[in-house]
C-alpha cells in the first residue's frame, strides 16, 4: 500500500503548475490576493497563502500580470490582472494541458497516435 506521504507528494507535483494556469484564468477579472485565494479554493484549486502571494509578485515581475493599487476601500489593496502577455502564455499553457489530457486518454484507451 502506498503511503499517504508518497501519494501527497505526487498529487502536489501534479497540481503545482495548475496554480499558475488557474491564477491567469481567474485574473482575467482583476482581484486582490486574498479574494483570489478564496475564488481559487471555491473552484477546487486549494492553494496555500504563502505560495500564492509570492507567486503573484513573481508573475507580475515576469510581465504576465499587471497590478493597480485600489485605495478607495477601508484598506489599500493591490489588484492584479492578467496582461496581454499573460493571456498569450495562458493560451500556450491551456493548449499544452489539453494535449496532456488527449495523450492520457489515448494511452488509457490504447490508441496509437
Amino acid at each position, binding site marked *: 500500500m502506498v503511503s499517504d506521504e508518497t501519494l501527497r507528494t505526487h498529487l502536489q507535483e501534479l497540481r503545482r503548475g495548475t496554480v499558475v494556469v488557474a491564477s491567469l484564468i481567474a485574473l482575467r477579472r482583476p482581484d*486582490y*490576493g*486574498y479574494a483570489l485565494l478564496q475564488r481559487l479554493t471555491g473552484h477546487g484549486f486549494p492553494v496555500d*497563502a*504563502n505560495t500564492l502571494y509570492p507567486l503573484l*509578485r*513573481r508573475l507580475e515581475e515576469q510581465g504576465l500580470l499587471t497590478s493597480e493599487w485600489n485605495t478607495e476601500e477601508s484598506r*489599500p489593496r493591490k489588484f492584479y490582472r492578467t496582461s496581454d502577455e499573460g493571456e498569450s502564455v495562458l493560451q500556450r499553457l491551456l493548449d499544452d494541458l489539453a494535449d496532456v489530457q488527449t495523450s492520457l486518454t489515448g494511452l488509457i484507451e490504447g490508441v496509437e497516435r
Partner: protein
Amino acid sequence: MSSLTDRYLAATLRAVPAARREEIATELRGSIEDMIDGRRAEGRDPATAEREVLTELGNPAQLAARYADRRLQLIGPTYYLAWERLMKLLLSFVPATVGIVVGVLEATDGENPGGAIGEGIATGLQTAIHIAFWVTLVFAVLERTNTSLNLPAWTVDQLPEDHVNRQITLVDAAAAIGWLVLVIAYLPLQHFRSFVPTDDGGNLPLLDPALWSFWLPFLMAVLAVNVGLEVAKYRAGRWTWPLVAANIVVDLAFAVPVVWLMWTDRLLNPAFVNRWEWLGREENLNTIATIVIAGTVLVVLWDIADSAIKAYRNRH
C-alpha cells in the same frame, strides 16, 4: 494593529530586498488583515484568528525567501556533484600530505619527536577543516550568484570501462601516486634541507649520506616503478594475479632494504643520531628501529594480503 502581525511583518521584511520592502509590506499587511477578517467572520475571536493566520503563513524566513526567489539550500543540484567530487579529491590526499610534511619537519627540527606525531595529526585535521570550509563556501557563493561553471556536459564517453567491478578508483590512484611522488622527492630533499642544522650551521641529512652510493637511488627507482604499477592498476581497474605478483616484488624491493639497513644501523645518519642525546642512547635507537621494522613489515603484509584477497574475489 496587533503586535503579533507587526512582528511577523518585521520578521518577513527583514529578509526581503530593500527596494521592494515597502510595497510588499503594505500588500502583505492587507492580505493578513483580510485573512483575519475571514476567520472572524467564521466566528473566531480576534486573537485566535490572528494566531491561526500567521501559523498558516508559516516561518517568515521561508515566506521571505519565496518573495525574494531565494534558494533555501546551501548547494543545489547544479553544483552538488562538482562539489562532492572536488571535496573527495582534495580530502583524499591534501590533509594527510600536509600532516606528514609538518610532522616530519617538526620531528627533524624540534627536540621532541613524540610531539611531532601529534603536531602532524593536528595540522592534518586543521587542513581538512579548512578545505571543507572554503570549498563549500565557494560553491555556496556560486549557488547564490547563479554563476555558470561552464563544466563540460556529461557524455557517455565518461563511463568507466568496467564500472561495475572497478576496485581501483581514480581518487585512490591519485592519492597513492601523490604519496609516492612525495616520498621520492623527500629522499633527496632531506639530504640538502633536512631542517636540522649541524653545529657550524650546515645541514644535517636525516639518512646516512653513504647510502647515496647505491641504496637511496635504488629505493627511489623502486618507488618510481611503484608509480608505474599504480598507473597499471588504475588502467586495469581491478586486481589481477600478475598485478598482485608485481606488487609483491615492488613491496619487497622497498621493504627488505629498508628493514635490513635499519637492522644493521645503516639507515639513519650517525651524525644525526648523535645530535640528540635521547636518540643517541643505544636502547632508544633500538626502540625506534624496532618500531620502523615492525611498521614496515605490517604495512607490507597488509598490502599484499589486501591485493591477494581482492584478486581472489575477482575470480570467484
